[in-house]
């Protein structure tokens, strides 16, 4: 016992002082991943799982011709070639389950770090558990701003958060007005009522007057609705130029159907990712998904200018049979950022990993994201992330903003439902 303690202490001192781990050979490094594998967000969860497995596969077995870190394969060099072993847990979209699963992964499976959890409210509870056990929690894709406002020491987020995304949306509207010489009269915010939707609503209410817009209507609705008739009628009565909407997949589909049914067509639907960027959204709605603009962190047409994005997407496609989405590409990137930290930590001690994460400095050229890079501030937030806006035209997402990265021009206004091209 004493000997183990001594050895542990020595390892700690060494890793702290010399940056070299004196640990025994680590054949594999266990990373706990918590995602909604069943439940309402299960189809997204399945996609994220594929992204994580691809990232682990690249690190463990390599990918020929890929110009990115770890593409040579053979595990994590800094850990003597230890292979990444993903231990999956299903949180079912339920915050309590998320917390329990995080605890189980830490105490039973002895994972060295956690990655998760898509739904912001589950990330909140699961990361709380990680904080208590002092295990690093890397969050690749939950965008609720409050997550990095909790003063956590062990929480790291690679994606830009809602403050920035919502801010992006307002910047876009301002620039669009100038570019097209149009006037956006009134906005309506239409958000689902879990943590994410409520945070977004608050922020939109704050930003609208700052940018000189009137928020004509502010609506929240329960995500598991069987109908959204009253919501859409209320929106229709408020007659906004632009609807700012945050929805998960099921309710995003239901909302679009209700817009069409009740003949509600604002000039622009400016959506807030999630359901609107799930690959099922267009497949399910077909032409009724046209002209929606949504914030994204990633778009397939970025690949036309970036070979790395194209190559990694090809790998993903051959595995998952779908292209990357903003969600899956971020989750992929999250695990890669963690692998980078593990490599530099040269140890699987939580504190060493945490310190390596703090020191993260990844350049834009090593990422498949349109970011300036990855660097964490004191709150654990990546400060170099940024969003893009995409519009659905002819069944595909096209980057329309920032205007200098745009693949095509914004279609404005959105044609009314009865004025649209009919299918043959």
């Amino acid at each position: 016992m004493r000997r183990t303690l001594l050895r542990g202490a020595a390892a700690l001192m060494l890793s702290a002082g010399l940056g070299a781990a004196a640990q025994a050979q680590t054949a594999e490094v266990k990373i706990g991943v918590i995602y909604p594998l069943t439940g309402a967000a299960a189809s997204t969860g399945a996609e994220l799982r594929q992204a994580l497995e691809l990232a682990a596969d690249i690190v463990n077995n390599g990918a020929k011709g890929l110009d990115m870190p770890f593409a040579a394969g053979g595990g994590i060099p800094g850990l003597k070639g230890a292979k990444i072993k993903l231990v999956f847990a299903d949180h079912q979209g339920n915050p309590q389950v998320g917390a329990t699963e995080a605890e189980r992964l830490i105490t039973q499976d002895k994972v060295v770090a956690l990655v998760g959890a898509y739904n912001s409210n589950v990330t909140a509870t699961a990361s709380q558990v990680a904080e208590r056990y002092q295990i690093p929690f890397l969050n690749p894709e939950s965008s609720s701003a409050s997550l990095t406002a909790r003063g956590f020491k062990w929480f790291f987020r690679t994606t830009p958060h809602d403050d920035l995304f919502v801010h992006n949306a307002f910047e876009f509207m301002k620039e669009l007005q100038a570019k097209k010489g149009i006037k956006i009269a009134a906005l309506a915010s239409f958000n689902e009522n879990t943590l994410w939707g409520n945070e977004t609503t608050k922020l939109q209410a704050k930003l609208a007057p700052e940018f000189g817009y009137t928020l004509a209507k502010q609506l929240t609705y329960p995500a598991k609705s069987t109908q959204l008739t009253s919501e859409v009628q209320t929106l229709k009565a408020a007659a906004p130029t632009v609807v700012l909407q945050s929805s998960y997949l099921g309710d995003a589909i239901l909302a679009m159907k209700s817009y069409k049914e009740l003949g509600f067509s604002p000039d622009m639907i400016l959506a807030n990712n999630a359901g609107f960027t799930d690959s099922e959204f267009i497949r399910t709605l077909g032409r009724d998904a046209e002209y929606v603009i949504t914030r994204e962190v990633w778009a397939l047409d970025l690949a036309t200018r970036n070979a790395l994005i194209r190559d990694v997407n090809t790998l993903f496609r051959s595995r998952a049979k779908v292209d990357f989405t903003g969600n899956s590409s971020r989750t992929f990137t999250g695990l890669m950022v963690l692998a980078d930290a593990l490599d530099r930590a040269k140890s699987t001690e939580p504190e060493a990993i945490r310190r390596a994460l703090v020191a993260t400095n990844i350049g834009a050229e090593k990422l498949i994201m349109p970011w300036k890079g990855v660097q964490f501030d004191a709150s654990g937030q990546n400060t170099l992330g940024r969003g893009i806006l995409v519009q659905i035209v002819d069944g595909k997402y096209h980057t329309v903003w920032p205007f200098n990265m745009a693949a095509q021009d914004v279609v404005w206004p959105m044609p009314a439902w009865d004025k649209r091209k009919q299918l043959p």
Partner: protein
Amino acid sequence: MTSAILLQTLASGVLIGLIYALVAVGLTLIFGVMDIVNFAHGEFLMLGMYGAFWMYALFALDPLWTLPITTLGLFVFGAALYRGVIQRIIGAPMLSQVFTTFGLMILLRGVAQFLWKPDFRMIDHSSVSGHVLLGGVQLGLPQVVAGAGAVLTTAAVWLFLTRTQAGAALEATAADREAAQLMGIDSQRMFTLAWGLGAACAGVAGALLATFFPIFPEVGANFVLIAFVVVNLGGFGSVAGAFWAGILVGVVEVMGGLLLGPQFKTALVLALFLAVLVWRPQGLLGKA
């Protein structure tokens, strides 16, 4: 707020209410006859929707044309489920019954997710699409057809129960199982019939819903909670009660959402439910 919007919203409320009613009729039928709460009822609805979807996706058959097949399929499924599973727990404590149907719910969802993936599906070109205009009120044609189908089905169930001998036997079993048995009514057959009919109602609702609602393994959860409220509100075991309560719930939900704000729509339905429980615990049309 113009009267056109109010009228439009009222109509939408009635239409979704009719679907709630049809789902609840199946639930109340099973409960009324054998006092077992079927937690897997939402999954029957889900199976009905998938049945319609697959016949559409694989053979390009319209959900409305395949409605009889879906209905029959669910009838057989419900009856078989009774024979295979439920029959064994008739005399069991209530808790075992609750867990059995609850377990069925989880199992059916899991199987659906395993077989058909958690993806959202949609029937995009059903024979009914577009709108109808009724006195300034614009209604989705699929919803109108679904509403009409729900009315017809509920009426048929009601007629069956009140006008046919088999229906009378079912009602007799519901009223007093042992007395009915003494009169020569085979209660096992009646129970099988109740499960078949209950599932068939969910099947019809599923096929009708499939013309305009996204289809996914968890879809039943969205409807079944409301169906429970409707069953309570209408009176456990009362088909007519479930029908009117379904419409009431739909209208309260939609109109309340419009007038007081959508954030209150579910709260209003549950408040109405509580009020009825206090004022008339047996439900609107239930027997005390």
